[in-house]
């Protein structure tokens, strides 16, 4: 439609009105056409009739406006009080408690192994025997969590209440390798790190120490639950702890696949520490170990000669394979180490700054 722009002023009202009407009808027609095109396209594309639903299904989804019910007509608490039967223990559990119960029941949750370990540990303490059963599947389940975890694990609050598992941040650093070596090990690892070393028997201590850092914190008197490579403690500290806890004669030789080198120590601190492989070994313990030789271990620690590639478990070295307890820890350590001819990749530091802590403790 062309615009009569040139002679508008000359038009009288009627013409103007006619013009307006023209324009108006044009506009309306345009709108109609637009609609037609739209509809036609919808028809051809097949979506024209999509918004037609039959009355019946419309009723199904009608908006509900009653109290106590959501707009779909569902009740909020409907499933809360239902009870489910646990497939594992066949108990009837409330629905809202079902998931945590399953975790504990199947032994697959984060905290379930801790609880179990604690139970085992306490029964160990009472029965004075080592439990060989360890839920290996826990290891698997903990893998994803512990692999990269660097959480602080200084304090572990025990998780007595299963209903409110506290997110204790201790690290279970179990790797696949570790579990392999565990299988060969007659004394399985206890994950129960009661952290308070006083409550643990020697067997548990040993197994604990093979998997964890174990360095005793000065202010809390608790063992570090991080992995053997935890950056907060040096290898020396770890070794000192082991000596301290297990005695210089403690800690038998590690397994065949554990790696211990009997070479000399490396003098360089820094590299040694951070590059140390996790050491999994000293759980083969001879029963002759005792914690009574702590005093002597302190001395022996300080006297330790420098060696090249000594593993973190210097405790092992001090103990020796059933070697004499506490006699000149250094020398005995060396001889015992010679016996272990496996190659350990990472060197370790001999000089522990930690013994001072243990002196205090003693």
């Amino acid at each position, binding site marked *: 439609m062309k615009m009569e722009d040139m002679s*508008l002023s000359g038009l009288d009202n009627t013409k103007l009105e006619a013009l307006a009407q023209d324009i108006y009808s044009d*506009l309306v027609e345009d709108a109609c056409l637009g*609609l037609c095109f739209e509809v036609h396209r919808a028809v051809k594309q097949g979506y024209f009739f999509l918004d037609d639903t039959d009355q019946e299904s419309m009723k199904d989804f009608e908006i509900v406006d009653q109290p106590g019910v959501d707009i779909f007509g569902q009740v909020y608490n409907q499933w809360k009080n239902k009870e489910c039967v646990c497939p594992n223990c066949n108990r009837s559990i409330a629905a809202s408690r079902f998931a945590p119960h399953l975790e504990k029941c199947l032994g697959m949750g984060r905290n379930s192994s801790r609880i179990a370990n604690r139970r085992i540990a306490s029964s160990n303490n009472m029965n004075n025997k080592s439990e060989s059963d360890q839920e290996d599947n826990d290891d698997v389940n903990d893998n994803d969590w512990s692999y990269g975890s660097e959480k602080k694990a200084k304090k572990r609050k025990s998780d007595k209440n299963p209903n409110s598992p506290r997110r204790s941040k201790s690290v279970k650093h179990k790797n696949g390798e570790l579990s392999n070596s565990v299988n060969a090990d007659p004394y399985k690892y206890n994950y129960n790190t009661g952290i308070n070393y006083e409550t643990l028997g020697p067997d548990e201590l040993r197994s604990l120490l093979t998997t964890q850092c174990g360095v005793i914190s000065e202010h809390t008197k608790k063992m570090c639950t991080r992995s053997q490579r935890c950056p907060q403690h040096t290898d020396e500290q770890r070794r000192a702890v082991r000596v301290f806890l297990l005695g210089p004669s403690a800690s038998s030789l590690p397994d065949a696949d554990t790696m211990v080198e009997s070479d000399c120590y490396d003098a360089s601190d820094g590299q040694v520490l951070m590059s140390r492989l996790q050491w999994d070994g000293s759980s083969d313990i001879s029963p002759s170990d005792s914690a009574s030789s702590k005093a002597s271990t302190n001395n022996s620690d300080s006297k330790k000669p420098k060696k090249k590639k000594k593993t973190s478990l210097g405790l092992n070295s001090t103990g020796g394979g059933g070697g004499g307890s506490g006699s000149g820890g250094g020398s005995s350590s060396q001889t015992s180490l010679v016996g272990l001819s496996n190659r350990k990749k990472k060197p370790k530091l001999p000089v522990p700054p930690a013994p001072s802590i243990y002196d205090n403790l003693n």
Partner: protein
Amino acid sequence: FYWHCVQQHARFIERFGLKELLRAKLTECGWRDQLKAHCKDVIKEKGLEHVTVEDLVVEITPKGRVLVPDSVKKELLQRIRAFLAQHAT
């Protein structure tokens, strides 16, 4: 001549504004849905597969014109007159 074209263009834009206004009003007042329903009838009548644009246009347009509510028509006419008055000089 150039200015004339510019003016014309401006007017078209403004008319377009009118156009949009009309469409909005028609939708709002339900004219559109009415007409759409009518379309459905036409389509069912003619058969879904064979409907052409022309069919629709022929059927729909006259009805559409009639269906426009009076209020909308009046308002639009008013605006058009104003528009024309604005550009008459």
